């Protein structure tokens, strides 16, 4: 009996983000807020974004869920800070493809810790956990664009 396979999913860096989430909390002042949940499993995220001059100036989240969904939220907020909205959306597309096991070309995009979630592609039942925070970000950004 071995949990070898499990280690491809639960990488050290994922557990680190789960235990010590980056950007967990709430933003003061003007920000856009998205609440999203995964009705089949109950994971929830409350995401706040500050967009200035077409760039993600700040991002914070609160939430409740498994290690995959919460570490992904932590990594996502870290990854999109300082990026333009277009870059953030592009990154989201790359991420979504990656966890679904599709070939991805990062094209010089800084992936950083996010790559650690590649193992999710081997666990189809967990893909939705990984993409929840990213879907919330996409929703927030698109609603912001509509308003502008």
């Amino acid at each position, binding site marked *: 009996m071995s949990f070898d396979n499990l280690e491809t999913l639960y990488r050290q860096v994922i557990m680190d983000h789960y235990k010590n989430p980056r950007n967990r909390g709430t933003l003061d002042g003007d920000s856009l807020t998205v609440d999203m949940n995964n009705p*089949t499993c109950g994971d929830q995220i409350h995401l706040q974004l500050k967009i200035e001059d077409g760039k993600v100036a700040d991002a914070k989240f609160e939430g409740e869920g*498994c290690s995959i969904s919460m570490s992904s939220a932590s990594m996502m907020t870290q990854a999109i800070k300082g990026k333009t909205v277009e870059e953030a959306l592009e990154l989201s597309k790359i991420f979504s493809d990656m966890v679904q096991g599709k070939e991805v070309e990062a094209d010089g995009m800084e992936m950083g810790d996010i790559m650690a979630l590649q193992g999710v592609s081997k666990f189809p039942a967990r893909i939705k956990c990984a993409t929840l925070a990213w879907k919330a970000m996409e929703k927030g950004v698109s609603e912001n664009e509509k308003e502008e």
Partner: protein
Amino acid sequence: MDVKELKQMFPVLNQEVNGHPLVYLDSAATSQKPIPVLEKLDEYYRGYNSNVHRGVHTLGTRATDEYEGAREKVRRFINARSTKEVVFTRGTTTSINMIAYGYARHQLKEGDEIVITPMEHHSNIIPWQQAAKATGAELKYIPLQSDGTITLEDVEQTITDNTKIVAMTHVSNVLGTINPIKQVAEIAHKKGAIIVVDGAQSTPHMKIDVQDLDCDFFTFSGHKMCGPTGVGVLYGKEKLLEEMEPVEFGGEMIDFVEMYDSTWKELPWKFEGGTPIIAGAIGLGTAIDFLEDIGMDEIEKHEKELTRYAMEKLKTIDGIQIYGPEKRGGLVTFNLDDVHAHDVSTALDAEGIAIRAGHHCAQPLMRWLKVPSTARASFYLYNSEEDIDTLVSALQKTKEFFGDVF
């Protein structure tokens, strides 16, 4: 009961998952199907597939005989007075919705009350929320004790002269609580209310006698009791089914159709509009034969022993939190400290063990438990103490794994 031999009757159980022999502990979600049921479905589709109650050809007659024969098997299985009281539906959810639409909405008015409990499955909450909104009736809850049971004193307190419907699960799909349906029915009747019972988690596991329980409506699903998916039962006392309106209109359920008005067939067919669930019902009939051959009392006894064993073993795991009362149906819902239920479930799956993780379609109950989600292992006639041992050692390993990586 020879579990090893019994297990051979369930082809799904004889396979490896992720390199380990499958240990299936998710029967509260759906049970596996034994060979006789699979063969019966195959026989119907290969041998005499045709529509029922219409046409006069040979195959149609055989299909009708088998379909109505299955109804008689259900009647005997739950001890209904007559087959008029046994309606085939798509499952428990459909059955409860049919009562909420066809009966409750016609009977309820402002000031009336519907009484339920916080331990209900969403399918025994939302139809009543909707019926209350539509009629102006009030939805009330019987409070839960800290161990997840209800007391008859609280039942007496909550049900008033204004209560028209009490809807309650027989066995909770999360806590395993076995509710005292017979006593609750007595209290409800004293106050002039009827009782609707969600029997999805009880019917597969214990002898059901609707006359002894004296419930007015009783609902259950075939797929949780070795039968096919897509078939279930609505039992109702004849008088109430007579008062109840059909919710699906069309072929098969009519007597006369005029240009501007129609009349319905007699019970139970007025509730079975369209081509009924023929294969499903016939398969359910065979599932009932299968369960009765083993004996419902035997099955209940086996599960009781297994659940006691599981509770005892699981309690030895450091940092496990078990929810629900000591006396329970064949399931254990739990959480491991610091490991989310989904992560537990993924780790167990890697060991070939199938359990359920999430909110179990009982969000109000999760809020009461103050947890976002839980893990649940549920048992059936084909599970053994060996399965429990495998679960317990995999949970120990899961704890170590997540302990290490943190």
